[in-house]
């Protein structure tokens, strides 16, 4: 009788263990399949609105190129890992390698490939920084880029090995069949090349030049 009860309990326990294992396994499998980030910060920026003339004068490097590789997103911490406390200058970024086809202004840091950094990205299963104004890229995409040095607080070690896009999405055009297009407009390649050539040596746009007496504080 006792043995029979123990056997029954054993069967029940065994079944529970198997069921728990199966459930946990399924949950783990689901978790592995669902790589969406567990936490998210979204950034919405009030951008400077630049004309193409201003992009041409303000950018230090203008080029036409092809997207070679979109690198995995990473934290801008020394370890590349998520910090314990997220501060204002902590963010996730994504580097994009661009093969240079034509240089329209400036001298790139490398002759054939430049790195463009966008401050957004998702680390699967961990964290995401999203932005409605940073540009998106796709592999093999032909692009026209207005680039500048990264003087942002996110570039903690003041690294010079990459560029950022002037005016975020405004400074990136997709090139297709003699047309360039972005969120704002579609133009003939020839006409934007003429604007670049005409204005690339103009002074820096005034909104980027800080003036005395126009600050928040008196």
């Amino acid at each position, binding site marked *: 009788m006792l043995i029979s009860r123990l056997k029954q309990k054993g069967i029940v326990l065994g079944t529970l263990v198997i069921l728990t294992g199966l459930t946990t396994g399924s949950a783990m499998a689901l978790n592995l399949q669902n790589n969406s980030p567990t936490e998210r910060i979204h950034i919405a920026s009030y951008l*400077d609105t630049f004309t193409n003339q201003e992009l041409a004068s303000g950018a230090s490097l203008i080029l036409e190129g092809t997207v070679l590789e979109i690198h995995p997103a990473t934290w801008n911490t020394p370890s590349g890992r998520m910090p314990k406390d997220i501060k*204002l200058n902590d963010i996730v970024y994504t580097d994009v390698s661009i093969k240079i086809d034509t240089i329209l202004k400036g001298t790139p840091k490398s002759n054939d490939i430049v790195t463009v950094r966008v401050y957004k990205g998702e680390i699967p299963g961990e964290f995401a920084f999203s932005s409605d104004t940073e540009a998106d890229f796709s592999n093999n995409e032909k692009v026209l880029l207005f680039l500048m040095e990264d*003087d942002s607080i996110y570039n903690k070690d003041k690294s010079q090995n990459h560029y950022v896009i002037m005016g975020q999405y405004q400074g990136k055009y997709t090139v297709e069949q003699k047309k360039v297009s972005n969120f704002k407009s579609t133009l003939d390649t020839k006409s934007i090349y003429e604007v670049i050539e005409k204005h690339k040596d103009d002074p820096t746009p005034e909104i980027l030049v800080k003036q005395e007496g126009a*600050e928040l504080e008196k």
Partner: protein
Amino acid sequence: MFIGSLLIGYSSVSFAYNLDPYGGHWEKGVDYTYSIASSISDEGVDSIVLASDQWDTIRKKKFSLEYSGDRNKQNNPMENINGENEVFKIDMGTSQAPANARWKYSGDIITEGDIILNSSRNLSNSSKPSKTAYHVPSIMVHEFGHIIGLDHSDNKDAVMYVSPAGTVKYQLGKDDINGYNAIDW
């Protein structure tokens, strides 16, 4: 065709607003209380409060924005994700935007919203800013709109439309109010 044109016109006017891209909203009954960095002048505080007050003028409002009056809370000005709603002013760099709002989600619930004014730009409290300066009440009412749960609008009359430097526009437009009323609180 006439009805079609009317519908297109109606949709472009009435639905120019956009809601939070991830469907985020604050928990029902929770109000937004914020502190302001001690690095911001008294004039700047007045501009910021003027901006948040605009969203409180909405009839049948479902959400309140309130300045806590706290200027000393931020011992570490770089502290960000700490459960507090804060307005900062720091030098973000020339390559960064004049202002941004950042908010954190827990599921689709927004749990914290901070705003950063970029001191690398010309920021003005004057009602007649120069064409190269950003009018603080105008950019702040826009940033508070993000915190509430609105994205950029395509309607040029809306405060949620991104206007060039020198623009003074801090009173809510019809499109802003329509967007506010469309948020799933």
